């Protein structure tokens, strides 16, 4: 080993205990645990918000939530779920598993790592504090523009918009730092013999995610900063009266926003083939094809943004360009789908909870992808834009494709992280409740959207009542069944059947060569990959 790394423990031997341990830790496993815990808490917070919304939508008319609060809840629900639940969950896995998978003793920049995490709780507080302030008569509540901050509404909004802007700044800094750390770790910390084309797929997924993040988060930061100066310092970036253009904001926002959806999904596309491979007891199909497809999707994702606002009135050539480039993404994505299916094809499959989630994920995420293809059609989009069809579509991609994917990862790696097996029966029950309730929540929304029910409105026409009621009841089942998930995780962390080192019969990869749970400092002697 010519260039081996041995972790130095000296400064850790008397590491502080209690709260100070977590505040000052630079250990990748501690930080990963904090990310995942934070993500789980915010998942419940965001879920609670949307259940308030669904409760209001149980009947036409206004019953529980007034329109002002309704507008705040939907926007903050999205911001909380995207920025403080899904993204930290993926970063948490990266922290825990990347060093273990590539044979590194820790992340490359451990102190940056600590800072990256501890920016998140203040950001979450900034985002949700205006709700509380409004109860004490300060301000008029949280941001009420939806998560997209569209101008001119956001220029006119109350102090909730400013809170959200600063929150987005903090979240952005945190993501950029996390991404730099991940790129450096993957480039510099691989075990001897692990070439780039031997990288675990999870590392590939995250590498592309990280590059997308550092390239697009600054654009969002720039856009919301311009919004801030428009609001308070008399600039006219987005003010038509002063020569600006509100549509410019949509371009800036979605230049970030579209890559963002792939940022949320690429880490999942990374570890999902590993799960499929484990429970099919077969090697991964099409490793190279998958890597190139991930790159192709990453590259295409930054040139298709305007399909989010086809209806603002673009010239036909621009519409055609954005339509065809958007549809072109389905080619590399189809390659990935066929690779995933080919991986489990004729494998000796077994259906433990992670595999249930993984197989369910392929189907449900497939529905999300195909309905996206419908929305990419300019002619059809004029009808579907801003209806519940869009809501159902992106929940199939982000809840099924994102969160259910993350859940598969949680069940897959939980025994490795805690050293105990989770309750398999409860896990399976959680899967079936989640999958069924999820579909019952969102399939009616496809039809509501096709029938013309607009999104983001607290009231609706009478003929939409039944489907909304089905959706609301299912949403509550979906929300409550997540408590099983929380219970399962907590009880698994506190005890249970000892997990073996390999945990799963078909598991491959360096993380399964370590004990469960891995020691506080792992790979102090770097492994050599042949």
């Amino acid at each position, binding site marked *: 080993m010519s260039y081996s790394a041995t972790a130095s423990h000296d400064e850790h031997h008397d590491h502080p205990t209690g709260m100070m341990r977590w505040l000052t830790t630079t250990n990748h496993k501690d930080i990963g645990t904090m990310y995942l815990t934070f993500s789980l808490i915010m998942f419940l917070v965001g879920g609670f918000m949307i259940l308030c919304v669904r409760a209001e939508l149980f009947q036409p008319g206004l019953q529980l939530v007034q329109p002002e609060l309704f507008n705040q809840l939907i926007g903050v629900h999205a911001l909380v779920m995207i920025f403080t639940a899904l993204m930290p969950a993926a970063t948490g896995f990266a922290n825990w598993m990347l060093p273990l998978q590539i044979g590194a003793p820790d992340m490359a920049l451990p102190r940056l790592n600590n800072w990256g995490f501890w920016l998140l709780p203040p950001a979450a507080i900034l985002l949700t504090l205006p709700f509380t302030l409004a109860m004490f008569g300060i301000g008029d509540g949280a941001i009420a523009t939806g998560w997209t901050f569209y101008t001119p509404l956001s220029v006119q909004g109350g102090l909730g918009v400013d809170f959200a802007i600063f929150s987005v700044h903090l979240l952005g800094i945190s993501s950029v730092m996390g991404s730099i750390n991940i790129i450096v770790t993957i480039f510099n910390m691989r075990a001897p013999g692990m070439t780039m084309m031997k990288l675990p797929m999870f590392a590939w997924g995250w590498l592309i995610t990280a590059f997308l993040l550092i390239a697009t988060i600054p654009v969002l930061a720039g856009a919301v900063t311009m919004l801030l100066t428009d609001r308070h310092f008399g600039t006219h970036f987005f003010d038509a009266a002063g020569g600006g253009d509100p549509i410019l904001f949509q371009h800036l926002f979605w230049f970030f926003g579209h890559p963002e959806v792939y940022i949320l999904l690429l880490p999942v596309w990374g570890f999902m083939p590993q799960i499929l491979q484990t429970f099919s007891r077969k090697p991964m199909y099409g490793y190279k094809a998958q890597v190139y497809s991930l790159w192709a999707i990453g590259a295409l994702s930054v040139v298709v943004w305007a399909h989010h606002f086809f209806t603002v*009135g673009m010239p036909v050539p621009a519409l055609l360009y954005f339509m065809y480039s958007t549809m072109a993404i389905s080619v590399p994505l189809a390659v990935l789908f066929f690779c995933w299916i080919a991986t489990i094809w004729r494998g000796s499959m077994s259906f433990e909870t992670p595999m249930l989630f993984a197989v369910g994920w392929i189907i449900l995420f497939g529905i999300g992808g195909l309905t996206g293809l419908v929305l990419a059609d300019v002619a059809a989009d004029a009808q579907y834009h801003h209806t519940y069809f869009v809501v159902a579509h992106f929940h199939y991609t982000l809840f099924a494709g994102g969160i259910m994917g993350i859940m598969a990862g949680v069940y897959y790696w939980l025994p490795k992280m805690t050293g105990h097996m989770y309750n398999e029966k409860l896990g399976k029950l959680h899967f079936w409740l989640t999958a069924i309730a999820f579909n019952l929540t969102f399939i009616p929304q496809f039809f509501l959207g096709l029938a013309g029910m607009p999104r983001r409105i607290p009231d609706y026409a009478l003929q939409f009542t039944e489907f909304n009621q089905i959706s609301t009841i299912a949403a509550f089942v979906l929300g409550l069944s997540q408590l099983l998930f929380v219970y399962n995780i907590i009880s698994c962390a506190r005890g249970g059947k000892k997990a073996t080192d390999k945990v799963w019969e078909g598991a491959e990869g360096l993380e399964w060569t370590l004990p469960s749970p891995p020691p506080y400092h792992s790979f102090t002697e770097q492994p050599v990959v042949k």
Partner: protein
Amino acid sequence: MESVNVESATNEERRGHANRKLGFKLLWIVAGSLLFAASLVPLYDVLCKITGLNGKTDGSATVAEMAVDESRSVKVEFTTSVMPGLGWNFYPKQPSVIVHPGKIETVVFEAKNITNEIVTGQAVPSVSPGQASVHLKKIECFCFQNQALNPGQTKEMPLRFYLSPDLPADIKVVTLSYAFFNAVKTEK
């Protein structure tokens, strides 16, 4: 970033040094995309000027000798809106006119201040379809400067314009919309 003596450094120090170096290099990408975000503002303006993407018209045009294309008739429609914060009535005196490309037309809008104070407004034009915006040339327009109205005053606001003869052949209807804003920003 302290420099590390490569000769005497341990593997771990060398690696830490390499990590920090790559980390700082990646910050250049972040800086680059911040710069890109800032440059999108002028870039967008230039792009819109060339393509008419956002339907904005150019400033005042000069009258040039040109052939009037009598064989072609294009309908120009007018719509108006008054933005919140401006207590005016504002409407076109004619909903639409049929013009021949190249011929100069005059149309009139009427604004009335329905408040009891002097109010200054600014009209912002927008043309649909966007491709037509670069072909709609204004010689004289009330939108070229702020308009002040006394309490209760009614004012006729003329617009002299022509459609340039190279207007794309497939455009048969052009809609010109004016939004009147309060030109003096009131504090929230």
